[in-house]
């Protein structure tokens, strides 16, 4: 009998002890002081003996501002600032992440030279191929405090992120740096805004030209001299594209007349809407616009190309690496709606099967130049304008930037100001120029564009004799080797003019959903499951089916009757 009592007491003790331990652990985790133990300050601040500054006033002089921030941080007992950066995109665009790494080193150097005993450390560099997926991850992880401090992604997400307060409003900081802002191309700055406030600085942009195979054109009899001018004037329209594509196919010069991009992640086929004079966004009402006439004409063009065998019916399901690019690179199509970054992608990826050696390899810059002609996206019909589409990427700052650091609640303002200064430095002309040439994106500011025209600078870059920290140099070494070439720089300079004609897809919270409807509609008309009119109505039905989308969309125009193409 006594044995049982002994067992009972043992149990009781065991339970109590376990409960106490659990409670203690929970208490420790939650009541842990957020600041570290006081770090011994090496230099005693000679300025105000009272409270150290929690924020500084930005002046627009970068070096002065960054030193001020550094001194303020030091006065608050901070010796290290940790930031993490999230970027996404193709493998050649790693400067989206390494740019920040380089900036950290540059700022650290400035601080060292000015006797400021603080360092920036980049703790995590996350780089994913799928930028949309990374955006979704950011959206989930930001409220948890698990997202990167810097978020380098498409401008298209600014509206949602700004609305939810997940990225920093940098308007007031940016206004102090008006000379920097003036050097950016102004349309890009507009893309960084939501409801008039600015949420990022432009990181890069591109254009989406129409590529034409010179050899196939020659076979078909298409004269390419001055074609880009004709497109600019609106003389060469999509009707002409159709006619030449048909001839190419009929004469057996190529298997396809036209190939384009796919998927709803890049709904840049909406260039057609703009090319037919339509609109996608109403800024006054802040609504996405469904322009029935322009969309009808766009879908009609797609439908006609597919029905006549000029455009693959199932192109929306084609594989990039095994079908789309090889088709273009081996001259199996006359026209291709592509992106400026294809120019170097064809050089670094192995899409081409050399008919002599039968090995697959990337193209040489000379081959790309020899085989490809490029123009703006032609006007839809006469009387309309040519266009191109850009999807600029932005340097964005997490509204919780600096969260990894001690005394965050207290020094939030300082951490945010420092983060802003980081992206200001990331906009340095050389960083932007390096990114542009190795990834074949377009520069976002005039100073960077000028650097690209400087052949001495290019040669230095090719030999990696430029001022970059070792980590970044090692990371981009092989890309530089493969892509830095005067032909590529020439290409970038030549397409610069397209930015004057460029359009942006709307940065509105429901636009991504609507873009998906567009992609579905295109797929259906291509496969012949619907005719253009049915497809337009399909889009409208999908929009109306969700009351929340319906409320944010404005439907205008009518499906034109008796319109023919070409």
């Amino acid at each position, binding site marked *: 009998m006594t044995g049982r009592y002994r067992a009972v007491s043992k*149990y009781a003790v065991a339970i109590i002890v376990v409960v106490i331990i659990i409670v203690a652990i929970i208490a420790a985790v939650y009541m842990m002081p957020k600041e570290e133990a006081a770090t011994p300050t090496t230099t005693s601040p000679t300025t105000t003996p009272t409270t150290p500054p929690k924020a500084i006033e930005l002046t627009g002089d970068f070096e002065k501002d960054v030193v001020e921030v550094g001194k303020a941080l030091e006065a608050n007992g901070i010796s290290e600032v940790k930031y993490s950066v999230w970027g996404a995109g193709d493998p050649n665009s790693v400067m989206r992440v390494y740019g920040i790494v380089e900036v950290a080193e540059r700022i650290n150097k400035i601080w060292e030279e000015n006797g400021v005993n603080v360092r920036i450390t980049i703790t995590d560099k996350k780089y994913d191929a799928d930028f949309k997926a990374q955006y*979704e991850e950011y959206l989930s992880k930001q409220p948890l405090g698990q997202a990167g401090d810097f978020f380098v992604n498409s401008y298209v997400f600014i509206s949602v992120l700004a609305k939810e307060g997940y990225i920093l409003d940098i308007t007031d900081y940016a206004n102090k740096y008006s000379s920097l802002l003036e050097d950016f191309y102004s349309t890009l700055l507009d893309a960084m805004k939501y409801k008039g406030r600015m949420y990022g600085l432009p990181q890069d942009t591109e254009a989406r030209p129409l590529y034409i195979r010179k050899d196939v054109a020659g076979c078909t009899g298409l004269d390419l001299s001055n074609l880009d001018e004709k497109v600019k004037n609106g003389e060469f329209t999509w009707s002409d594209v159709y006619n030449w594509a048909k001839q190419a196919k009929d004469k057996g010069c190529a298997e396809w007349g036209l190939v384009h991009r796919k*998927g709803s992640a890049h709904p840049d086929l909406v260039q057609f809407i703009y090319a037919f004079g339509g609109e996608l966004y109403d800024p006054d009402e802040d609504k996405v616009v469904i322009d029935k006439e322009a969309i009808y004409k766009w879908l009609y063009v797609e439908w006609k190309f597919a029905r006549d065998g000029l455009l693959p019916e199932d192109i929306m399901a084609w594989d990039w690496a*095994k*079908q789309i690019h090889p088709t273009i690179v081996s001259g199996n199509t006359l026209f291709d709606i592509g992106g400026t970054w294809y120019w170097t992608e064809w050089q670094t990826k192995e899409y081409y099967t050399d008919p002599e050696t039968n090995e697959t390899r990337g193209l040489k810059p000379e081959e790309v130049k020899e085989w490809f002609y490029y123009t703006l996206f032609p006007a839809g019909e006469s009387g309309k304008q040519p266009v191109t589409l850009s999807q600029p990427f932005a340097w964005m700052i997490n509204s919780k930037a600096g969260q990894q650091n001690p005394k965050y609640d207290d020094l939030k303002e300082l951490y945010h100001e420092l983060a802003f200064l980081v992206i200001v430095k990331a906009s340095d002309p050389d960083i932007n120029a390096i990114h542009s040439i190795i990834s074949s994106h377009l520069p976002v500011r005039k100073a960077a564009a000028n650097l690209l025209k400087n052949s001495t600078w290019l040669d230095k870059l090719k030999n990696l004799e430029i001022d970059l920290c070792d980590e970044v140099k090692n990371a981009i070494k092989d890309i530089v080797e493969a892509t830095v070439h005067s032909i590529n720089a020439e290409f970038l300079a030549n397409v610069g003019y397209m930015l004057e004609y460029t359009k942006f897809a709307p940065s509105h919270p429901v636009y991504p959903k609507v873009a998906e409807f567009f992609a579905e509609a295109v797929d259906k008309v291509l496969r012949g499951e619907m005719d253009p009119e049915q497809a337009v109505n399909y889009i409208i*039905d999908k929009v109306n*089916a969700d*009351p*929340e989308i319906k409320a944010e969309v404005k439907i205008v125009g009518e499906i034109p009757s008796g319109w023919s193409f070409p």
Partner: protein
Amino acid sequence: MLYKLNNFFHKLYRFEALFFLIPALIIVFLFFILPVILSVYISFTPLKNWNIGKYLGEIVGFNNYYRFFYMIQHDPGTRSVFLTTIVFIAVTLTINVLGGLFLALATFFVYEKASAFIRTLWLLPRMAPIAVYSLVWYYFFHASRIGTLNSILLSIGLIDKPIDIGQKIIPWGPWSIIIFVNGLVGVSFGMIVFTSAINNIPKELVIAARVDGATNWQISRRILIPLMKWHILYVTTWQLLSLLTTYAHIFLLVKWNLVHRDYGTTWSLYIYNAAFTGTFDQGLAAAAGVILVVIGGVLGWITLKILGFDRMITRPRGDI
């Protein structure tokens, strides 16, 4: 004083079981019961983008339910999700039960070493990492010439152009793919249960029948299957519940656009996608989810009653 304490703990003695059970009870409460309650709450709020500070305090009544039903009525995509769920469950269930039965019986009649290998092979879909499993089928069913299935059919001349099963052959294309992918995973469950059931059948019955000249089919039909009735019922009902709730194995196939989104998404996946991808509309997801929980709960309760589990639970083996 000590006596009073001891008395108290003496009463606790009856609850010594608690010590062993507390971890399980906490886990079950925190990860099953509480989340359901919270989901019900969320369904009454306009929560989106996981911005709980902004939206969680707001109550919008039945608005999410209203939106959900509105979309069912007006959006053919949402309607398709329903249809897909029903067809998916019905067909996959049949395949799982019959397939499991076939494998169990077939391996019983085949020599031992081969059957062990086969059973192990068929466990692979269930055990393999989900991302790898999805990648395998992504390339198998790929819509172009590079897809394995397409290239096989092309080479034997059955088709002359590659076919896009997942996106073009609506609705049976995507349906076949998701049924196939999940079927391979589910068959192993039935296979295991039935194998164990067969092993419990006295060998004398089978040997006697054999001696009398019975064929494999006769033995299966007359002896084995009738003795497995409960097991067949168990596998059917259990798999029904599994199929109602599964979503991980088709998540990537839909995300990677291998299958048409509306006809490749089941109700369960729809909920996950609404909450964690795309529109990040947690309120809507919760509303759709609560309805599914109710259905699942009712079906589950019926299952327990049919299988007679409560009757099978005997008193514990040894208590003082």
